[in-house]
């Protein structure tokens, strides 16, 4: 796969089809891959990488890149392609300036998953078939690829690539993973337990804004939390309330627009399961207003921007009847 | 009560003068009705309204004024808009003085001085000019070149006419950007006017104004034969602590709040041009 991606990128640049290509660049280690803009085939061949650690969703970079001179090539994994479509739906990406190459994905690995297995001082990883050989400062260990799978990939919604000009690998299908299991588990708790859970999680927040800045849905020109005129600007959570406020409002602002790409949880330095907020809203919207997947098409109306006269009343929540 | 440089004192605005449509000059005294603190021309102070915010302003009154501090403030942001809306008697908080100030008693001593200001840029220079006027015998000839968009935008116009223009040994050169009916003075931009005036290269230049003005005036001065080490200017950057700690006004290895705001231009050539 890596060879095909690099070759494609090089070819796009060499042929002049694209002025630049968005991909991933090798790092100091095997896992610290950085999204990068490549401008020459030579650079691509030297520095480009496509490994199971290329988790970063590149679609958000297209907001700026597609507005620059010349065409930009981009490699999109299935979940990234949902964001790609959603951003187009919101008129954020100029599609005519983008050449999208879909890359089939069997799930991405994550250094955090390896760490969760107790591995420390990881200096190298060799991938072969379905196993990873992990070299550490303290010895070598072989783990199943599945064990190294990133948290979000364990509940992948779809391997279908959307709106790509070209595919590397086969077109995938929607998957039927238990995406809302964790949400349901929380829902089943008592309010006190849920409150304790979220307090313990959100109190870790350091308001670094990584979740927001990486989120393809949080692509506002100016976020309300940064805007001195919004009346709610804040920089650090000075009170537990502000920790909640930021995440509630963020979840609400991306409701119906969040494609569930899982970047927020991936980048959180404090491992707050932020996707559980977004997934709750997705689950509710699906249950209340019919199934909807942001970024899966160009025509459907996001549930927060439409209504039916028969929508359930808010009293189903406030009177505790719940969402069926 | 904790004492910390970040904890301000309460001060009171006793008098407000409207200079131009968007500049007002505020007279501030301490809680005891006296001048809050002594300062060097070119130094600044943090004024704030709790709940609105804190901002750094240069002190425009001369240190020789024993009664109060003055600040000429242009309305441009949140804090300045608030200050423009207050009335005399309003209390504010104050901390300072901050910054190095102009080397009035060292580098400037005995020199011929040329002050060049544009718009609100006169504010920090007014303190020096009045200081120099007060100790007139310590300095040589004084030239003041001051320009604004229009006559109405000239700050301290009354003081300039009534006092500066009347004083021996001080030559005031006013200019406005565009001609207007009730103006018989010079018309044109400051950099060009400076070149037209063509000062003796032995003089020391003190300059403050918008970045464009600084840039072109400096070029003009160099054309006239001035060296950068003869030119002083003062900067404005975003500041929060004014103590060289919060990191905002950091340029290169300098902190504008603590190492500035007054710089001799040859010192700046070593710095990134992030100002």
């Amino acid at each position, binding site marked *: 796969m890596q060879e095909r991606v690099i070759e494609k990128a090089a070819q796009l640049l060499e042929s002049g089809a694209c002025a630049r290509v968005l991909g991933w660049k090798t790092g100091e280690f095997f896992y610290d891959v950085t999204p990068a803009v490549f401008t020459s085939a030579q650079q691509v061949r030297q520095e480009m990488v496509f490994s199971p650690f290329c988790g970063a969703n590149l679609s958000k970079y297209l907001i700026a890149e597609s*507005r620059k001179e010349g065409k930009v090539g981009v490699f999109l994994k299935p979940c990234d392609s949902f964001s790609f479509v959603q951003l187009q739906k*919101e*008129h*954020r990406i100029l599609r005519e300036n983008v050449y999208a190459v879909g890359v089939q994905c069997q799930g991405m690995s994550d250094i955090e998953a390896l760490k969760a297995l107790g591995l420390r001082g990881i200096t190298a990883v060799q991938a072969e078939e379905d196993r990873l050989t992990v070299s550490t400062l303290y010895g070598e260990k072989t783990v199943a690829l599945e064990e190294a799978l990133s948290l979000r990939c364990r509940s992948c919604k779809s391997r279908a690539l959307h709106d790509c000009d070209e595919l590397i690998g086969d077109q995938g299908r929607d998957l039927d993973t238990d995406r809302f299991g964790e949400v349901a588990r929380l829902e089943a708790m008592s309010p006190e337990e849920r409150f304790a859970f979220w307090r313990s999680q959100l109190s870790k927040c350091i308001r670094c804004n990584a979740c927001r800045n990486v989120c393809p849905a949080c*692509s*506002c*020109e*100016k*976020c*309300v939390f940064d*805007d001195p*005129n*919004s*009346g*709610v600007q804040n920089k650090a959570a000075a009170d537990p309330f502000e920790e909640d406020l930021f995440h509630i409002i963020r979840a609400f*602002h*991306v409701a119906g*627009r969040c494609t569930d790409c899982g970047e927020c949880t991936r980048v959180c330095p404090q491992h707050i399961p932020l996707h559980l907020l977004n997934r709750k809203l997705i689950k509710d919207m699906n249950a209340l207003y019919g199934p909807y997947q942001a970024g899966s098409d160009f025509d459907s*109306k*996001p549930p*927060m*921007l*439409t209504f039916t006269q028969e929508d359930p009343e808010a009293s189903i929540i406030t009177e505790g009847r719940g969402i069926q | 009560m904790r004492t910390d440089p970040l904890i301000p004192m309460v001060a009171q605005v006793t008098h407000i003068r409207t200079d131009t449509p968007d500049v007002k000059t505020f007279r501030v005294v301490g809680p005891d009705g006296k001048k809050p603190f002594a300062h060097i021309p070119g130094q600044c102070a943090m004024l704030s309204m709790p709940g609105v915010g804190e901002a750094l302003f240069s002190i425009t009154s001369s240190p020789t004024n024993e009664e109060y501090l003055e600040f000429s403030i242009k309305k441009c942001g949140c804090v300045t808009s*608030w200050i423009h*809306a*207050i009335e005399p008697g309003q209390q504010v908080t104050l901390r300072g003085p901050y910054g190095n100030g102009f080397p009035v008693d060292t580098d400037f001593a005995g020199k011929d001085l040329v002050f060049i200001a544009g718009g609100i840029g006169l504010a920090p220079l007014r303190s020096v000019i009045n200081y120099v006027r007060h100790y007139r015998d310590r300095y040589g000839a004084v030239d003041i070149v001051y320009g604004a968009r229009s006559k109405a935008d000239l700050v301290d116009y009354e003081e300039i006419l009534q006092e500066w223009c009347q004083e021996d040994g001080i030559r005031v050169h006013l200019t406005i950007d565009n001609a207007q009916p009730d103006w018989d003075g010079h018309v044109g931009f400051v950099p060009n006017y400076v070149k037209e005036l063509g000062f003796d290269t032995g003089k020391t230049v003190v300059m403050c104004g918008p970045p464009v003005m600084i840039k072109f005036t400096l070029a003009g001065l160099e054309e006239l034969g001035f060296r950068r080490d003869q030119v002083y200017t003062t900067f404005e950057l975003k500041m929060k602590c004014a103590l060289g700690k919060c990191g905002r006004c950091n340029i290169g290895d300098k902190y504008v709040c603590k190492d500035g705001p007054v710089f001799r231009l040859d010192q700046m050539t070593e710095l990134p041009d992030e100002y």
Partner: protein
Amino acid sequence: MQRIGVFVCWCGSNIAATVDVVQVAQALAKEPGVVFATDYQYMCSQAGQDLIGAAIKEHGLTGVVICSCSPRMHETTFRKTCQKAGLNPYMVEIANIREHCSWIHKDKPTATEKAVILGRAAIAKVHLNAPLTAGTSPVTKRALVIGGGIAGIQTALDIADAGFPVDIVEKKPTIGGKMTQIDKTFPTLDCAACILTPKMVDVSQNEKIDIISYAQVEKVQGFVGNFSVTIRKKARYVDESKCTGCGLCTEKCPQKKVPNEFNLGLDTRRAIYIPFAQAVPKVATIDPDYCSMLKSGKCGVCAKVCAAGAIDYKQQDELITREYGAIVVATGFEPIGMDKFDEFAYAQSPDVVTSLELERLMNAAGPTGGTLLRPSDGTHPHTLVFVQCVGSRCDGGEKGKPYCSKICCMYTAKHAMLIRDKYPDTEVYVFYIDVRTPGKNFDEFYRRAVEEYGVHYIKGMVGKVTPQDGKLKVQASDLLGGRQLHIDADMVVLAAAIEPDKSARPLATMLTASMDTNDFFTEAHPKLRPVESPTAGIFLSGACQGPKDIPETVAQAGAAASKVIGLLSKDALTCNPCTAQPDELKCNGCSSCENVCPYGAISYIDKPFRGPNRTTLIRRVAQVNPAVCQGCGACTVACPSGAMDLQGFSNKQIMAEVDAICR
């Protein structure tokens, strides 16, 4: 920082009895920015308004807070007051300390404390108010009247009389409405057709009036002064311009078994028909449900007999889009269906009829030529029982309506009287809950029925009607006599409740005009603005707003017309300046706002912006048409970046109110 004046109104004792107004003024005087605070007996009086005006000038006020009655009552008054004193009218905020405070609380300290908090919220808001200037929009000098009954006719005639063009949209092939079906009118007993048909002719001959019959409103866009309405004119398969109304086709048409809706199905008509002789426009219409030519392509008799060549089987529905400045709703009423009232055997016996059917049975142009005959066997009925309030004043409202249909008492008295007059051999019983006869000469009329004509009025309800041996066994209670009655009647007449026409609900949605739970249109103010809908530019005429008799309907129709004339005589309208405004620097151009805007007020443009380092960025940003925006604020919440804000109800203003209240 604003310079705010606070004015606390006593409203006589309405506020002052429960709220310590002096204390409120004193407390609010301490709020930041307040430079003047006072109280006065009646702020809305001329003296009160003068006081405000004087204070604005004397203290150089930039904002005014008035603690008084509801802003719905006097906001406009105080805005004008301030405007006169040179202050922008949108620098005024009202703290509602009457309806929301003094009138609902009894304890003075509590009410006073609350009044202070409400005042604080208003002060906090006015701090963030910005002067707003209302824009203007032009007025299209043409009115649309929806419904061609007596209400619509009268409204159209009055508007046309003032020189403005009017279109009437009527869903039936002819205008005239329910009144055409009525025989005589109470309390004068003059013939309905005699007073209505000349008016119909007036309409058809009036150059200013365009009748669009057999048509329905399909889409409404725009706003007061600038509506754009799409009307679907149904195909009648007859060219209106050619048809002379000779009626030959309606005689020759072989399809004779079509229930005649004009006579409420009591007789039949042809597949091509003119509803009645005086129809306007007097043009034939083909009923596509029955015409064999249209259904199977076989027949074509009408086309053959039509000398004018007006028949056009290929005619299509036509969509007409026209611009209007004002729209009058005159959709009228219908009697409710009787299917839920099995006890009266309406479905079982043709001799159980509704009052409107009785009108047809007594009308000279009706199926019986005006002779009262039993529909079942055409015999002369001797005993008639009238049942009142069938479906009216029903508690719970499952079977019928909670309201009084208002006209039944009088038309029943009329029917009873006419029958006793014409057929003195009949016995007429009227079962009633109450007899309601407010109105000029109404009670006299009812008393004549009882006293002169010997109609048996019995207070009580009919429990059951059972058809048996050609008779209708009526079981009823006599509440005053305290006994059960059994009457063998020949006919039973049901005073069916009336309800708004079925077309009203979808129309209200299109017009964004509000309705009450019974689907009657809501008026802008029940007393002071009875003929206007809360939606600007929409006016109400006739029974669509509530049950009415003919004189009331005509009066309201005239009133609606005069309101329309008032609107159309203006060259431009002042827009509501409290509209949404995007901050282009924050706008993402994502279209969220456009998606939720009910008025289509939002569009997008690509606009160049200054980027960092002297670059130019082209960005898609939202634009709001202030003439179209009505200021609901849906877009402001849909906007994730907060770029869209609502003037007069900005995010910061509302949050300032929240802060002040929760402090």
